[in-house]
């Protein structure tokens, strides 16, 4: 049998069931006696609920119960999992987030009533018969509107609609840097609001067992234990041993399925009231106004440089939209997950960042693939390009001149993070070569001959993931630990089951985690089973997001396997009548060093469970170990992305012709999966750069409320992506892996926009905000045409 270990492109075990329609998603699950839920949601952005008349609705066929905010006024609100403090030391304003809207509705989509009926149809029919008296209130939909003097308040307790006003870095050092600068470059930029649109919409089933008193929640989550903790402890006050959360197959998350959502708490609570399992599946329109949105920052950045183009200091002020309520991780995204990345790959000595978090009458905003790092990277790579332009320097040279050199690691940045390893020249050179950067000028002329404008753009980035060292996270405001757990159970015949706190919703863990076991224990890949997603089966883990599963979850597995091997050696020593220090474990065998006397892993396993010839006085039977791994630091993948675009000046359409990515993600476990992760992240980055935008009008209505108006990238928007890797190992985890899930979405948007700005070099354009849509590009070309004619 083949041992498929680290570095092998093992085909995914998951694919057979996913590609043949045999996945087990929440909507596929049907519980005996189940009934159905429909949520009546606000179609107004801001209003005072005067009355909810359910009289007619309650009488309709099939209706079992109708619940409103009044019913939930005695339970906890949906909690926020990260607390940020403002500059003056005061904690962030944390308004209550009721399970169902109470007193006021604060965004289009805010749930007002939960209707439970025998069928979905009947629940919908009854919801339509509920009569609402909601007095419309003025709404604020944008950062600008919310921060304007005298703006209507989303929450009475948040003066000026401000949640917090935070800072990081050294303002004095930055001021000194600016004072001696030869050049100061300033840039206003927007990071556009996005909607994750995972292929599977959210769904949940709440269930209560009257005989055991146990609650079960089936939910489309990236982290079932986190949901159990937040919902059980903070919302419904259900003790943990009475609450089971199951996240089965989940069809993509990209961050949007991390958070504890109101529907989960509402259904779990209601199931105990009606004593039937209650099932809810969102439709896509509902997802648009209830899944957390992403990004939505407005920033002003200033970079001070000396006469040679070396960066002296960077100053950034950001306004971040929180939406109407604080979602689980929201306050951390623009602060500790973003501002701390403002050194990027550069040795900038002084950095200061300020972040003002703002409430608006929009859907709550929280982490979305990259979570804060795309925002930081976009800002940095745009201002670096702008600096090159204003100093008349080459865009490649200005970057290289400011890179953190490879012998400078571990490198302490001026904004908290310490990078462990990296070689930015290596990924840079590889990407420049692979993209044929040198040959661009000739291609540009060819495009020009056909009347098209061609541009090339570079992005060099580093990011921080592998979330996170618990004590550090706690000191920065996290309300949970961020370790990961692995329970490795070796079966008597030598096969292995791994119980992991990580969750797979597209990442392929069933395949890659099994590769780790094949590598370290020599167990064939098809004899390794990975179990995740059910809190009753796995020890307490923190789930999958922030590119942490391999770096933290995989490391936990390595530690647990180390313990397995340690115990195995003792058993082998006994069987082989040798000293334990003379036993080595290699290629799946325990052997006496310098001899050919050995025992296979499977034999040791069997012996552990049938301990007849066994050191029973010193060693318990069995072969099962658990390890909790708390990372020592974040991990720091980095790399270089290069995009090449061609613009049709007649229509403004931007065609992406080429995309090259060279990423350093530390040790590669499965190259095929790495390529898929990078390509997927880049597709979403291209979506952000050229196509996607969640747009609210001034009154708070979501104009891009469906696929008809929210432009998702399709296959014909994406060129063949060249993916390469360079490797510097993570120095502080046993795998040496840094994580790859988000790098694609982090590195790509600035590469694309830098290319677009480059293509428009003759049109007096210094910056374009995302998405660079055709109408926007055409308007720029039109506005600068007279200038062209004059020249």
């Amino acid at each position, binding site marked *: 049998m083949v041992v498929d270990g680290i570095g092998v492109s093992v085909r995914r075990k998951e694919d057979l069931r996913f590609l043949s329609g045999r996945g087990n998603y929440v909507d596929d699950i049907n519980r005996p006696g189940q009934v159905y839920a429909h949520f009546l949601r606000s179609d107004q952005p801001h209003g005072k609920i005067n009355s909810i008349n359910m009289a007619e609705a309650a009488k309709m066929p099939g209706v079992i119960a109708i619940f409103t905010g009044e019913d939930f006024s005695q339970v906890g609100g949906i909690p926020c999992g990260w607390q940020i403090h403002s500059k003056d030391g005061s904690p962030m304003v944390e308004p209550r987030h009721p399970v169902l809207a109470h007193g006021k509705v604060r965004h289009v989509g805010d749930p007002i009533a939960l209707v439970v009926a025998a069928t979905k149809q009947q629940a919908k029919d009854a919801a339509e018969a509920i009569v609402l008296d909601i007095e419309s209130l003025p709404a604020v939909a944008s950062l600008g509107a919310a921060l304007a003097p005298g703006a209507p308040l989303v929450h009475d307790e948040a003066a000026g609609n401000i949640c917090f006003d935070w800072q990081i870095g050294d303002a004095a050092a930055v001021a000194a840097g600016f004072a001696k600068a030869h050049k100061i470059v300033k840039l206003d930029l927007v990071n556009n609001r996005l909607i994750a649109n995972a292929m599977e919409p959210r769904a949940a089933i709440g269930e209560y067992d009257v005989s055991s008193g146990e609650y079960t929640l089936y939910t489309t989550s990236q982290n079932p234990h986190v949901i159990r903790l937040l919902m059980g402890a903070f919302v419904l006050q259900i003790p943990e041993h009475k609450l089971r959360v199951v996240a089965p197959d989940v069809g993509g998350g990209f961050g949007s399925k991390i958070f504890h959502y109101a529907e989960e708490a509402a259904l779990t609570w209601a199931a105990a009231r009606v004593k039937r399992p209650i099932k809810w599946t969102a439709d896509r329109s509902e997802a648009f106004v209830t899944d957390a949105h992403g990004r939505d920052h407005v920033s002003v950045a200033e970079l001070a440089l000396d006469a040679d183009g070396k960066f002296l200091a960077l100053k950034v002020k950001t306004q971040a939209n929180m939406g109407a309520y604080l979602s689980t991780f929201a306050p951390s995204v623009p602060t500790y997950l973003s501002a701390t990345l403002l050194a990027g790959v550069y040795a900038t000595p002084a950095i200061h960042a300020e972040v003002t978090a703002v409430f608006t009458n929009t859907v709550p905003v929280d982490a979305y693939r990259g979570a804060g790092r795309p925002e930081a990277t976009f800002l940095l790579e745009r201002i670096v390009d702008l600096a090159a332009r204003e100093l008349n320097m080459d865009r490649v040279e200005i970057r290289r001149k400011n890179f953190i050199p490879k012998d400078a690691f571990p490198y302490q940045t001026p904004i908290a993070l310490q990078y462990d390893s990296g070689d930015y020249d290596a990924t840079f050179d590889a990407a420049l070569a692979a993209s044929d950067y040198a040959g661009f000028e000739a291609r540009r002329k060819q495009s020009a001959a056909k009347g098209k404008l061609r541009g090339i753009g570079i992005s060099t980035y580093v990011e921080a993931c592998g979330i996170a060292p618990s004590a550090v996270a706690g000191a920065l405001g996290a309300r949970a630990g961020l370790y990961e757990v692995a329970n490795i159970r070796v079966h008597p015949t030598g096969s292995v089951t791994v119980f992991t706190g990580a969750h797979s919703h597209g990442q392929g863990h069933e395949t890659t985690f099994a590769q780790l076991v094949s590598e370290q224990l020599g167990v064939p890949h098809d004899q390794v089973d990975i179990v995740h997603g059910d809190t009753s089966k796995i020890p307490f883990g923190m789930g999958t997001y922030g590119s942490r599963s391999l770096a933290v979850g995989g490391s936990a597995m390595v530690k647990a396997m180390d313990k397995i091997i340690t115990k195995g050696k003792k058993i082998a020593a006994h069987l082989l009548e040798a000293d334990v220090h003379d036993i080595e474990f290699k290629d799946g065998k325990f052997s006496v060093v310098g001899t050919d006397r050995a025992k296979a892993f499977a034999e040791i396993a069997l012996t552990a469970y049938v301990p007849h010839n066994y050191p029973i006085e010193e060693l318990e039977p069995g072969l099962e170990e658990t390890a909790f791994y708390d990372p020592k630091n974040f991990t720091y993948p980095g790399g270089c992305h290069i995009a090449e675009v061609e613009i049709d000046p007649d229509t403004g359409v931007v065609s992406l012709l080429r995309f090259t990515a060279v990423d350093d993600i530390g040790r590669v476990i499965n190259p095929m999966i790495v390529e898929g992760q990078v390509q997927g992240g880049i597709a979403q980055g291209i979506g952000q750069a050229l*196509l996607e935008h969640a747009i609210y009008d001034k009154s708070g209505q979501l104009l891009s409320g469906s696929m008809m*108006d929210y432009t998702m990238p399709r296959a014909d928007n994406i060129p063949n992506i060249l993916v390469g890797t360079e490797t510097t190992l993570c120095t502080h985890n046993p795998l040496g892996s840094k994580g790859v899930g988000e790098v694609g979405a982090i590195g790509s948007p600035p590469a694309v926009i830098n290319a677009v700005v480059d293509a428009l070099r003759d049109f007096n354009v210094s910056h374009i905000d995302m998405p660079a849509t055709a109408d926007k590009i055409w*308007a720029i070309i039109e506005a600068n045409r007279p200038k062209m004619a004059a020249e």
Partner: protein
Amino acid sequence: MYDFEYSKPSTLADAVNALVSDGDAKALAGGMTFIPVLKQRLNKPSAIVDLSGLDLSGIKLEADKLVIGAMTPHGTVAMSPDVKKSIPALADLAGNIGDRQVRYRGTIGGSLANNDPSACYPSAVLALGATIKTDQREISAEDFFQGMFTTSLNPGELITEVHFPIAERAAYMKFANPASRYAMVGVFVAKTKSGVRVAVTGAGQNGVFRHKEFEDALNKSFTAAALDGIKTSADILNGDIHGSAEYRAHLIGVMAKRAVTAASA
């Protein structure tokens, strides 16, 4: 969806009767627009009359015209040798509607009866000067389109065939809305027996319209250059998050030129 009665009559008379006798009954052609509308509960018909049992699908090439049955799916038009031989622009248009799944079910009759201002077919019918044959009469293209989602069809009146005169030259150029891939601007140019006709869909506030200035210029010289300098007024055009009215006005000129170039090839 709301509940409704479903029937699938096998004669035209039965279908018309079902629609006329119940004011809240609706006809179902391919369903590519109507089924999503029903799923989103934007319509509450008492009954749905499925037209797929009426044998109204088919393509006939006659001496001077192409006759397409109302229930002919877009994919069939796109792949038809008769259409490709006689009016290839029509095959191109049909082949770029929606996606493959939509093209297996969506029909020309359904598209025309709905008159979505972003639909492609209205521009072909208006530019080619087609005649719409119903169970009651024949309606000229000029008289058929009455504004967005509005036609001159009487309640219960069903389109049975569309008759396309064969043009000397024709082409269709569509600038797709990046999200919906409907026509943000679609221009159908045809050199017909009675002169050049240019019909624009997607952009107008009132649905498909003919572009008189372009027609006059192209009648003098059927070249893309003939359209240089002719500005389209933005006043009657749509503006939305995907583009301003000015942008659409500009695109009309670009697509028209590209259509003329393609038609001349």
